[in-house]
């Protein structure tokens, strides 16, 4: 549905994005993570046909994006910009009507009415956008983004600055888009949000540091991990845990975190060793590192790699 191959974008001497590649499938939510200035918005703008890549290509629904096709391709993409960007003096209905016409939506009035009903903003139709709360503005902006039923939806920080209820509403809308078979690319700093909705995750720091499912990233970075709760100080037992199939052991107060290659095979022997060493075990449960841990590890690894080979991360 959308593919980007080796996207690179320079602004003068500054390299904003380097060789970023990704594919977006129908019914998939793809999260783009990265620190501020990592190139997320630039990437989204290239995918939306707003700016041209210095090199590389973007393909939407089999149509290659170029200077000559960009206007047409933009019609297949819905791009929610970081700011809602509503015309303040126009009412909600007027804002949506203008965009419906710009996108050539048939039966404009009907489409606008249906969209407003879908997004729960029908009662605000006659209200000027300036009078809306931030959450409502974002909802209207989302409605505007989806008015022409795009196959590909690009969302730049869709829940930024929203209260928890509004953020949840937006998340539910994003999930609904996936259920409708749309391809959704979500750029965000909110890792909790990504954890809840994303099928695939990419971490960008000028270059794509990693692209995969959250589960695969977890397995790749941390393997399988066990969390063992003890009745005593866990640091005293770290040396006891070491053995075949165990790659990493850390302790936090009365908890041991143990990375193992095969939990079902290694756990009984591990428990026996701990009990023999006098450990009072309260529980042994599989531990899944949070997306935040994965994200921070990926950024740290990338930074270490860059320190080791500065040419790789030259910006």
């Amino acid at each position, binding site marked *: 549905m959308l593919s980007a191959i080796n996207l690179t974008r320079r602004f003068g001497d500054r390299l904003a994005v380097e060789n970023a590649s990704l594919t977006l499938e129908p019914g998939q939510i793809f999260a783009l993570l990265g620190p501020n200035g990592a190139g997320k918005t630039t990437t989204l703008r290239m995918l939306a046909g*707003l700016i041209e890549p210095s090199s590389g290509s973007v393909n939407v629904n089999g149509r290659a994006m170029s200077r000559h096709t960009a206007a*047409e391709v933009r*019609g297949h993409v819905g*791009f929610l*910009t970081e*700011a*809602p960007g509503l015309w303040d003096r126009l009412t909600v209905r007027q804002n949506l009507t203008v965009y419906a016409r710009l996108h*050539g939506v048939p039966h404009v009035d009907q489409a606008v009415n249906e969209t407003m009903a879908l997004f729960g903003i029908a009662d605000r139709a006659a209200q*000027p956008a300036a009078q809306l709360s931030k959450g409502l503005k974002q909802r209207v902006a989302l409605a505007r*983004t989806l008015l022409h039923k795009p196959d590909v939806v690009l969302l730049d920080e869709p829940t930024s600055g929203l209260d928890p209820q509004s953020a949840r509403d937006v998340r539910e809308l994003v999930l609904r888009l996936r259920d409708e078979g749309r391809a959704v690319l979500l750029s965000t700093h909110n890792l909790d949000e990504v954890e809840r909705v994303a099928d695939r995750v990419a971490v960008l720091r000028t270059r794509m540091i990693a692209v995969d499912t959250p589960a695969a990233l977890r397995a790749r970075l941390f393997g399988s991990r066990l969390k063992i709760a003890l009745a005593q100080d866990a640091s005293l037992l770290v040396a006891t845990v070491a053995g075949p199939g165990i790659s990493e052991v850390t302790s936090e107060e009365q908890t041991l975190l143990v990375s193992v290659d095969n939990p079902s095979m290694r756990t009984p022997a591990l428990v026996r060793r701990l009990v023999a060493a006098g450990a009072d075990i309260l529980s042994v449960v599989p531990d899944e590192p949070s997306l935040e841990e994965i994200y921070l590890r990926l950024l740290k690894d990338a930074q270490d790699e860059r320190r080791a080979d500065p040419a790789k991360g030259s910006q």
Partner: protein
Amino acid sequence: MRRVYALLVKELIDLRANPALFVPAVLTGLTSLALPFVIAIVIPHLTGERLSDSSDFQLALDMYRSEPATTGLNPEGAVQGWIFQQFLLLLVFAPIAGAMSVAAYTVIGEKQARTLEPLLATPLTTFELLGAKVLGALIPSVGLTFAGFLLYFGGVWLLADPGVYRVLLTIRSLSIVFMLGPLAALAALQLAVCVSSRVNDARSAQQIGALIILPLSGLLVAQLMGRVQLTTPAMIAAALVLALLNVLLMRIGVSIFDRESILTRWK
């Protein structure tokens, strides 16, 4: 054209919701409307001196004696006719000057309100965007000009000597209002929109936009001094030049509109 119309409707709704934007255009229009009446009717009435007795207007009198539209007018009427026709140019250009600030603000205004990026994310082409922006400023300013002309004509018909109103119904006068004026307005507003798409703050846009009215003011002064004669063939030639200039300006506007700079460098 569908997208131009969509954005044009937005521009007009936006202007209607903020009529204060056109206050300068209305004020300059009203001032330019009142000025010839003050010179041709109010001052002679207050001083008791006839314009046709003044040597300052002898040239006007000589020029107007040969005009078919002034046949049958007395000398005072002929001078009034000359004044009302000379000031027609000011009447036509004044609302344009007022609309310049609107046009100059149009792109930078969208950028500052952060409404430009969603707009550029639609299939709207640069030509369509600029076309709608220019028309959004042109239609109200031309509307004001036409309304001003109706008031002007009514005022002349009621207040000037009998028959003077005929000078406003000549091909030359009507061409100024309905052909030269709109074409000049289109050119000036296109320039202003070009400026708006190149500068990165609203104050620069408005200041540079204001400079564009200088050539128009120069033309007016030259005409009042008798240096330029807006004869019918001269106006047809001017209209053709303006039409070509408009085509050229639109091409230039499209080619210098840099979406990327606007999105990535303007703050």
